[in-house]
């Protein structure tokens, strides 16, 4: 343990004294305050905050990612190329201990720098309202939509594969497939049928109602407010492009079972909302039952004379303040740290068998791919069947090994003030660090343990 620590301290010294870290530190120390004073966004306080946090965090994350890769690859490859390793591994230290020490050093350096830069970003966001002498309205807007951690509950996608398969069977039996879907493959037709069935569950003809029940709704404070955010789609465009509706929000079970009303049920007056536009209904958070149950009912009033549909992706969600901005910010920083740990493991794997330039190219290629892996994975799902089969047995596994950085981008949560839950952080920790990072580290350790250190390969 003592020798691991000695190596870790030496690694940090190397990164600091060889000025590898210095370049990144100076760059960030200059750029972050500059960003703080120059970003304007849409001109409002919220806009400024969102732009600053988005750019600030992304910049910190990218620069620290690069630093991690350079530091972890350099610390090992330079030891081998400049041969200090001859005097190190001939001491009573096992090779895996040496690599662990290097990893620990890089991660500690990362953690220290991350704390420093996140503190700067946090400080600037906290004092931004005073810098710009924001108006009261702007401050309220920022408090509601930025300095918060709102959880969002979305409608679950119901499993309709059985119904879709039945539809397909019927169409096939009656020989209507070619008529309705000329030139489509079976998979494409099934996709369309599934989508239709799903939309059906989210559609209300005139005079009909839709009821959604949510569980595990945990507002931070019952005195806060809930927001129901929705968007309409319609079968036939109404002449004035408006939809009239009635809503009920609260513990529906009290009505269903006829029990005395304990938690209040809110019924806002009849609404008139434009179609295909996001709208929000604000309701006191005490509408949520003690066990975290909340029901939202929508009535398509007969006045409308058309079918109202809530689109699949973002038709309706319930938002509520679930945590403070500070806690959310800390979790966002943790998310970055997890990414850095993964990259440190990657760097060590690469350095265990490659020279510095090659290892750096290898790591950067993976880093870039990881940043766009969501896009890459998606693009593969549009391939023809035969190519897809080949892909699913080969590349898919390789790409699976890469973490999806774009999916877990911390700015994505902080900018709209969305809750970044502990469970998500834990999941990323498990998937990215414990599974993928550990696999890479293990592979690196294996290669390094059996490698002939003094062997010069030209």
């Amino acid at each position, binding site marked *: 343990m*003592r020798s691991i620590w000695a190596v870790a301290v030496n690694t940090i010294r*190397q990164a600091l004294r060889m000025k590898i870290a210095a370049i990144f530190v100076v760059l960030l120390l200059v750029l972050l305050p500059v960003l703080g004073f120059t970003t304007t966004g849409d001109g409002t306080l919220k806009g400024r905050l969102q732009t600053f946090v988005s750019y600030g965090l992304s910049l910190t994350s990218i620069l620290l990612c690069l630093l991690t890769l350079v530091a972890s690859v350099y610390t090992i490859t330079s030891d081998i190329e400049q*041969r200090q390793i001859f*005097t190190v591994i001939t*001491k*009573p230290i096992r090779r895996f201990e040496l690599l662990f020490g290097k990893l620990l050093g890089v991660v500690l350096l990362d953690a220290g720098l991350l704390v420093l830069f996140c503190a700067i970003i946090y400080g600037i966001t906290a004092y931004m309202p005073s810098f710009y002498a924001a108006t009261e309205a702007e401050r309220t807007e920022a408090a509601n939509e930025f300095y918060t951690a709102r959880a969002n509950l979305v409608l679950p996608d119901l499993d309709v594969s059985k119904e879709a398969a039945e539809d397909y069977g019927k169409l096939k039996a009656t020989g209507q497939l070619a008529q309705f879907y000329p030139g489509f493959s079976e998979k494409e037709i099934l996709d369309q049928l599934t989508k239709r069935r799903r939309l059906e569950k989210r559609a209300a003809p005139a005079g009909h109602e839709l009821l959604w029940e949510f569980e595990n709704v945990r507002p931070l404070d019952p005195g806060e407010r809930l927001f129901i955010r929705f968007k309409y789609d319609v079968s036939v465009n109404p002449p004035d492009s408006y939809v009239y509706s009635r809503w009920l929000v609260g513990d529906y079970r009290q009505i269903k079972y006829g029990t005395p009303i304990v938690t209040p049920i809110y019924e806002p007056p009849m609404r008139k909302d434009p179609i295909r536009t996001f709208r929000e209904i604000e309701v006191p958070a005490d509408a949520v039952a003690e066990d975290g149950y909340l029901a939202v009912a929508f009535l398509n009033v007969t006045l409308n004379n058309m079918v109202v549909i809530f689109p699949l992706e973002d038709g309706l969600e319930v938002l509520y303040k679930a945590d403070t901005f500070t806690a959310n910010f800390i979790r966002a920083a943790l998310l970055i740290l997890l990414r850095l740990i993964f990259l440190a493991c990657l760097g060590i794997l690469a350095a265990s068998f490659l020279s510095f330039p090659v290892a750096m190219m290898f790591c950067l290629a993976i880093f870039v791919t990881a940043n766009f892996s969501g896009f890459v994975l998606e693009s593969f799902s549009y391939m023809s069947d035969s190519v897809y089969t080949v892909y699913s047995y080969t590349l898919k596994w390789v790409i699976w090994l890469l973490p999806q950085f774009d999916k877990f981008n911390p700015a994505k949560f902080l900018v709209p003030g969305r809750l970044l839950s502990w469970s998500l952080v834990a999941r990323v920790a498990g998937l990215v660090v414990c599974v993928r990072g550990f696999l890479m580290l293990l592979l690196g350790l294996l290669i390094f343990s059996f490698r*002939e*250190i003094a062997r010069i390969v030209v």
Partner: protein
Amino acid sequence: MEYAVETISLTKVFSDWWGRDKVYAVEDLNLQVRYNEVFGLLGPNGSGKTTTLKMLLGLLYPTKGKTVVLGGDGADPKINARIGFLPEESYLYRYLNARETLDFYGRLFGLDRQVRKMRIEALLDMVGLTAVANRAVGTYSKGMARRIGLAQALINDPDLLILDEPTTGLDPIGTRQIKDLIKKLAERGKTILLCSHLLADVEDVCDRIAILYGGKTQAEGEVKELLQQTSKRQIVTDAISDGAVEKIKQIVQAEHADCEVTSPMDKLETFFVKTVAEAQRQATPTSGAFSTTQIGEFLAADKAQDSILDKLVSAPAGHESLSETPKTEKVAPVETSEPKPDEQLLGRLRTAEPATPEKQVDTSEVESLPDAAAGQEKIKKRVLDQLTGKPTSGDKDRESSDQGKAGDPGDA
């Protein structure tokens, strides 16, 4: 455990990218280095010396054959803990200063903070880098780097010291100091495997040598045996008259042998060292290294003794009264070279007796202590006895002569 280092038909073949054999760096090498001996591995460049050392330490894997180092595998951390290694160049972390460098290696050996501190100061003093200890190692000259490299090889008080061309880059004085150091370490019971192509160095310090060429042993044996010209005799006298010389010549001619009379020359090395020592006495300032040539006290002759010494130094405030602590410190410096017992040991080892008599003597001494007091007291006494030599009648005399030697720079 008969040999400190042994290689058994050791072979290393470097193959090219396609796996085809290219170079036989070491071929069927059988080396035996005995305990407490200075063994020199000689050979021209590319003869496989360094490759052999690297295989001993697990930096390269043998293609065929095996190595045994201190009775085990040279890559095993337990064995590594007893080895000091100086590679062909002092590969150091440029950004660390001398003290940090030694501290880093001390930590790798798991040494306690106090032990590290004590040893670092002793070693810096020994290699003459105390004055520049806070400068980054990257700014050192080659000779200074060599000195710090040697210091790092000694920080664990190793039983076996593997030195790859220890004197390259050093000035003649540094070379002289290193050679003296090697001799002193050997006197203290260390085994030294040394690899060089500087023949003068090897000749001065090695007990036995092996000459490698093309990865094979070409000659092996004791230096004296290999070099002594048994067909010739040399007589060295003080300055005598020409008449006496003539008489001697006549005697030799009567034996039908040739005779040549000259005045012996000083070695250039001796002259150089003398000249610089003179300049030093006149205190000419220098920016380079200045060694006191005082050997690190912790570099003990016996492992057990050393660890007890460390314990005593690292835990001065035990349940013992404070007044006793200075006593150990005062006595510790006396523990310098003790030529007599070591030469006996050397002699026995040369006659291939595997026993290590020192230890046996120790235990008998402890057992024969008149009063078995508290355990701590006993250990301390034993250490003190060891440090001052056997408690015989001539003890005092020897002690004083040792002290005189240790303080005398001319000893170097």
